[in-house]
Structures are given as C-alpha cells and as structure tokens.
C-alpha cells in the first residue's frame, strides 16, 4: 500500500465518505428495527428502486438529483400509504406496481439524455467516495432531523410496529405515525442511495438488525447491537473497498453478510451446546 491509514483518513473525499457512511449506517439500521418488525422490507426495496425516476428527473432538469429523488420518493411513500388504506389491493401488489413503474420511468428519462450516463451506474450501485460536500450536508441535516424525531417518539413508533391496537389504546394516532414512518423511511433510503445505490441500499436496513436478533436478549440490547454492527459494517466495508480497490457499496453489503453468517453459525452452535448440556444434566 502506498498510503498509510492515517494519511488515508486525512483525504477530504475519505472524510466525507466516512461521515456520510456513519450517519447513514446509524439512520438506516435504526429504521431497520421498525422495518423488520412491521415486515416492510419489500416497501423499502420498492421505494429505493422507484426513486430512480426522481433522480432521473433531477438529472434531466439539471436540478439536484438527490433533492429531486427525495421529493419524488416521499410523494411515492405517501401515495403507497393512501392506496393501502383506500384500495382493495394488497400492500405487496401496490408496492410492486410502484416499484416497477418508477424504475421503468427512470430508465426512459435517463435514456432521453444523449451519450454515456455515468450517474446511472452511480445511482444503481452507489459511489460513496464521490460524495460531494452539498450531498454530505443534505445527508447530515436530513439524517439528524429524522434521528431526532425517532429518538423522541421511539416508544410510540415501537408500540405501533408491535401492535396497532395496543398503540391505539395507548392514545397514539396510528395513521399519523404510520404515514410519518413511511415518509422518513423513503427519505432515508434516498439518502442511502448515494452510498449503496438503488440495488443495495436495503441491505443496511435489514442485515444489521437481522444479525443482532440472533443473540439479543432484550429490545434495548437489540437496538445497541443493531447500530454497532451497522457502523462497524460501514467502516470496515469502506476501508476494505479502498484497500482492495473494489466498489464500496458492494463491499459494505458483503461485509454485513459475512458478519451475519458468522453470527448465525455462532448462534446455532451456542444453541446446540446449550441443548447438549441440558441433555447431560
């Protein structure tokens, strides 16, 4: 290696990447707890894919693709929520329609621009090392606002995710908080697209919390482990990708998968050992 770790961390693009990665790791993994509780993984994947149309509108109109994707996906999330309430179709069908339509619209809009489209690859697979200062500012401002809201309404959001009726009985307005969760999730996914891309962004929502669930013995432990695993995954994945000269988004996802696999094997082995000791007793 021609550069030491200390020198690497001095590089402005690496500092931006690390800060963006850590903020998004915290935000997405925390939201992932609610996503897995409410079984919203498909919603997350669908919104991330459909956001391509929003980014394409931004690229075509020379407006900020990130801001345009944010606005588009938040509107889409509200539309999915409204259709879930008003139409007889299942949530999966509605998301499936939005997912494919948004993606198709994005591809057509991007094809309207002549020549090679490097931004398209960036949006599909992410490019954390190319994050600009204005993107970082958006990620930090939106990320901090959403995290502050979740932290101050954690009990309500958790109870609603656990049991809608109990949430109603506890005086929580379920419709309002559900809509807010949909919009916050859409917004966070779009911010995450800059790091992992449309195709991979759901990974940081799902993998850390799924790993933490394998060994957590309380909700508090689950929350802490989820966030710690996500931050470690982003940090390790980012540095590994730089060292190995491989795409950052994909390396981050595979780092998360490797940690999950290790935890899964350790958890299965631990269960087996406990069962064996019980049998011997």
């Amino acid at each position, binding site marked *: 290696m021609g550069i030491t770790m200390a020198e690497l961390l001095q590089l402005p693009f690496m500092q931006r990447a690390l800060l963006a990665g850590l903020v998004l790791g915290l935000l997405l993994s925390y939201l992932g707890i609610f996503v897995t*509780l409410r079984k919203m993984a498909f919603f997350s994947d669908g919104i991330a894919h459909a956001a391509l149309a929003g980014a394409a509108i931004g690229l075509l109109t020379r407006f900020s693709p990130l801001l345009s994707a944010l606005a588009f996906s938040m509107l889409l999330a509200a539309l999915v929520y409204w259709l879930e309430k008003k139409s007889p179709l299942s949530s999966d069908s509605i998301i499936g329609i939005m997912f494919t339509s948004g993606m198709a619209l994005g591809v057509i809009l991007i094809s309207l621009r002549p020549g090679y489209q490097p931004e398209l690859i960036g949006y599909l697979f992410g490019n954390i090392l190319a994050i600009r200062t204005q993107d970082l500012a958006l990620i930090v401002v939106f990320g901090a606002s959403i995290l502050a809201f979740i932290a101050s309404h954690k*009990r309500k959001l*958790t109870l609603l995710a*656990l*049991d809608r009726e*109990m949430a109603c009985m*506890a005086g929580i307005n379920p419709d309002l908080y559900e809509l807010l969760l949909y919009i916050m999730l859409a917004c966070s996914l779009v911010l995450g697209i800059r790091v992992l891309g449309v195709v991979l962004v759901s990974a940081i929502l799902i993998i850390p919390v799924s790993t933490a669930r394998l060994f957590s*013995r*309380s909700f508090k432990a689950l929350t802490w482990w989820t966030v710690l695993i996500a931050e470690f995954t982003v940090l390790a994945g980012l540095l590994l990708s730089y060292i190995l000269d491989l795409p950052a988004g994909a390396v981050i996802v595979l780092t998360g998968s490797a940690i999950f696999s290790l935890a899964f094997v350790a958890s299965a082995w631990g269960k087996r050992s406990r069962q064996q000791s019980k049998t011997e007793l």
Partner: protein
Amino acid sequence: MPPVLEVKDLTVRFNGSLALDHVSFTIEKEAIIAVIGPNGSGKTTLLKAILGLIPYEGEIRLFSLPVRQVLAQVGYMPQRFAFDSNFPLTVEEFINLTCRTPEKLPVHGALDEVGMNEFKGKLIGELSGGQLQRVLLAHALLHHPRLLFLDEATSGIDIEGQGDFYSVIQHLNREHGVTVMMVSHEISMVYKFTDRIICLNRDLVSHGETRTALTAEVLKKLYGENADFKVHGHEAAQAGHGNHHG
C-alpha cells in the same frame, strides 16, 4: 351515577356484510359482564367497536362520555399479540412500552399484582400461555382502569388456571369497583363468576342477569340444538361439561 356503558343501535359492517346488527344495551353499574356467542357472532367486534378500534354506526358512551375521552380509564387485554413473539422484548420492556406515562411507571406494581415480577427480565416469547395471559392482564391493569375489557382471556389455560384467573377478576370487581366485560367460551365459568351476560349472534339474542338470561333455550339459539350443555332451569352448567368452543 351515570351508566357505565351505553350501546345504542350499534351496527358494524365488514366489506358490506353485517358483523353486528343494531345491538343496544346498557350496563347501569359496576359488574362482571360476559359476552358469549358462537364463532363469528360479533363478540370481539363488539369489544373493538366499544374501544373505538374499528369504525361503526350507532352510539357508544362510557360513563356518559365518548370513548376517546375516557380511554385512559379503560384497560384492554387482547386475545393475542399481533407481533412476532420471537422478537427480543422482555416483559418489563413490553409493560414500559404500553404505558401512557412512562416517566411515572408503576411497572413493578402491575407485575406484582399478577405475580409476574420475577419474570420481568424474561423474553415475551419464552413465556408459557398462562404467564403470557398474566402479563397481558398486568398491561391492562397498568393505569388502574375503571373498565376492563378481556377478549377470551383464558383460552389455552387449564381449568385450575381459569378458576384462578376468574378469582382475580372477581377480586378486582368486588374490592376495587372495576367493571369487567369479557368475551368467553367457558359457559360454566361464565355462569359461576359473572353478574350479567350479553348473548350475541350478530344481533342481540338475550341480555340481563346471568342467572336469568343464560337459559338452555338461549344456549340452543346460540349454538344449535346439538350443543352439549347441562343447563337445567336456573342451575349452573357443570364444569367440564359446560365449555363450548363452537
């Protein structure tokens, strides 16, 4: 003193079909009230409508006020959890989450009342059926409700456990003046422990004092001619023969 509960012309529809048809009744004073009827007769629907959990037509008032205004005085024990019971959530965390004022949390008191304080660190998914029912009861009692709704609270519990559970309910009613409305299939327990009864089969088949309203004719009307009950005039259905799961 205002009536505890007034239900007037309550109608509930699901996708156009009637789940409850113009049901009206009044509960004047503190009592233990059973709601019985066959599957699909609208028992749970009645509870959920009273609690404002589903849309309905008609009028419902608790203590002469709209339900939303007195929700803090109401406890509800659902039939089951809607969430994945394998989710890592301890008993104490569950009670904390469901509390309206977590900063003034009487969690130990609520768990003590149902004998579950020693289980507060245990995961919800690791509790037995009976332990889970007691945790749900602790949750329902958390805010010292004046009105308690129980939806098939003793399903999956053995006869002895049911007796213990009903004794707790009776204690709450007699000693603390809590009105309890419970959906149940256990006819013998209903006969033994409840003061009033509401017999539903989408519409109101019968209601009144348990000993007078729960007759063999009413049971046949609810569950059919072949239902296996031992109700002789005003005599209680015998335990072991009086349970109906139809």
